[in-house]
């Protein structure tokens, strides 16, 4: 592939997280029986008119602000005309001439180096209905029809599937961070059209592009791109030319197939949507929306390294999810040792969440309780196995770590007299192992420490136990 260069651009459709639809006040949820969240507007009854959802505009503008777009103070809607079973009006209300956000870029990491993928524009539009294709008919549910979408169109700045994945992952993270969208791919919250072309290395002019329509899994995009770029290269190598066309990805067969050529491309006959007045924004409104933006993942990652002295790796893991990052930060602010908090969050907390299949909001352990728990460990009041036991209780039921330690009698035994006794017992009961240790087999000591722990019912300070054993075995 090295003798060919690829250029990939994306059109990313993102379903915005709003309570109501884009152009009517129907509830914006897809659960429930078909056609139960509909009104004259979203099933296109004669006479129904659209009304803009301000929250959708706000969210799209916020995305523009996040990626450094120029926000249009004046933008308008247009009608895009085509017939299909999932269309309520057989035109889609979208933005063609004056979109909400122009320009901007998303910075991704490529081999540890930053690379900015330029964004051409972001516009606002409405979703179509959900159609189920059966053998001889199609059933259509309009619950999804007119849900708010933003479409983000990039320049062809990505060079391979990995960069596309990095772009989508970064974008998704930002959108979730700012509460723009749930970005649930299984529910179709993020769908992509992928434009790609290849050209011989050294050529400056972009090759002829093809478009892969309606890709809705990251894995699918990756596989489809691998196939499509290779296909284009092989065509060129064989002396052929690429047809400018729309193709679709057949996930089962693992191939892309032609859908329609440029010549048969539909003429959408865009023209202004007279039912909607222009959206006129003022600087004060935009400033207010900007002020609502959360810190972006990349900035937060850098800050975690600087402010809490975390390794890059920890900062990356913790900031991948905004809720986790928020949790970490709430705890770290109260903790003497932020790295210990990071270890607990990345270790026990993420493990427990993963096992329960829960997100952080469901965990009962408060950041303050986690900090208190870490304090108990650091003060050697409890040992690590006991701390994990306390954590599990806190995770499931919440509560105060000290009180749990008290109630369960988990406090470490640091009384050297008691530990010396347990050590003596352990040696007496395991003469053979003791002999092995004396003969220089160091690991045998760990067995004996284990026995001391057992005798103390887990409460002995393991370090003190090891010291006592060493002393007694020497003597």
């Amino acid at each position: 592939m090295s003798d060919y260069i690829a250029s990939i651009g994306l059109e990313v459709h993102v379903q915005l997280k709003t309570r109501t639809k884009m152009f009517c006040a129907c509830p914006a949820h897809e659960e429930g029986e078909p056609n139960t969240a509909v009104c004259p507007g979203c099933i296109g009854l004669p006479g129904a008119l659209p009304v803009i959802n301000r929250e959708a505009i706000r969210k799209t503008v916020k995305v523009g602000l996040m990626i450094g777009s120029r926000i249009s103070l004046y933008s308008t809607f247009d009608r895009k005309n085509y017939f299909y079973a999932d269309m309520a009006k057989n035109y889609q209300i979208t933005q063609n001439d004056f979109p909400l956000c122009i320009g901007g870029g998303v910075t991704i990491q490529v081999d540890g180096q930053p690379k900015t993928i330029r964004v051409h524009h972001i516009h606002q539009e409405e979703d179509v209905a959900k159609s189920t294709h059966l053998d001889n008919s199609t059933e259509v549910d309009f619950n999804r029809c007119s849900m708010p979408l933003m479409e983000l169109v990039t320049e062809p700045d990505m060079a391979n599937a990995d960069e596309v994945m990095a772009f989508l992952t970064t974008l998704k993270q930002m959108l979730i961070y700012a509460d723009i969208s749930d970005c649930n791919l299984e529910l179709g919250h993020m769908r992509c059209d992928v434009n790609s072309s290849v050209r011989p290395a050294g050529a400056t002019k972009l090759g002829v592009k093809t478009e892969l329509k309606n890709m809705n899994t990251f894995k699918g995009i990756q596989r489809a791109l691998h196939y499509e770029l290779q296909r284009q290269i092989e065509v060129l190598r064989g002396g052929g030319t690429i047809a400018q066309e729309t193709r679709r990805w057949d996930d089962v067969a693992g191939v892309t197939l032609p859908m329609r050529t440029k010549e048969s491309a539909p003429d959408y006959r865009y023209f202004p949507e007279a039912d909607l007045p222009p959206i006129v924004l003022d600087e004060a409104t935009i400033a207010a929306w900007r002020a609502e933006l959360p810190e972006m993942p990349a900035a937060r990652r850098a800050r975690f390294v600087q402010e809490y002295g975390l390794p890059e790796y920890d900062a990356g893991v913790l900031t991948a999810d905004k809720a986790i990052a928020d949790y970490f930060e709430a705890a770290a602010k109260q903790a003497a040792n932020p790295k210990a908090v990071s270890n607990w969050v990345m270790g026990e907390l993420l493990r427990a969440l993963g096992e329960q299949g829960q997100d952080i909001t469901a965990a009962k352990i408060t950041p303050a309780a986690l900090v208190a728990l870490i304090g108990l460990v650091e003060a050697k009041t409890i040992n690590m196995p006991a701390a994990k036991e306390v954590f599990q209780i806190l995770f499931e039921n919440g509560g105060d770590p000290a009180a749990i330690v008290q109630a369960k009698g988990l406090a470490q035994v640091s009384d050297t007299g008691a530990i010396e006794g347990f050590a003596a017992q352990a040696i007496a009961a395991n003469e053979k192992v003791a002999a092995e240790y004396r003969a220089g087999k160091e690991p045998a000591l760990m067995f004996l420490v284990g026995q001391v722990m057992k005798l103390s019912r887990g409460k002995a300070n393991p370090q003190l136990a090891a010291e006592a054993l060493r002393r007694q075995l020497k003597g």
Partner: protein
Amino acid sequence: MNPAEKSDPVDVRYVAGLARLALTDAEAAAYQHDLAQMLAFAAQLRQVDVANVPPLQVLTEAQSAWREDVPAPGLSREAALQNAPLVRHGQFVAPKVVE
């Protein structure tokens, strides 16, 4: 009508395809004629000097007439489907789609 247009008639079948109207051959011929006539009529607009004239795209004086993100009741499913020619499983039914 200028000669260039005469030699390049309207593709009525193409337009009917976009507008999704089945036409018989006789209808196609008749509309072909009508469309040519209508284009000729509309071509009178070429006599108007529109240099430096902006298009009138927005008539209303209303601006940013938007609503807050608050749900309101719509139609019951029964009302939504009451006029549908074919309904199955609470859904509108279309003939199959051939790509």
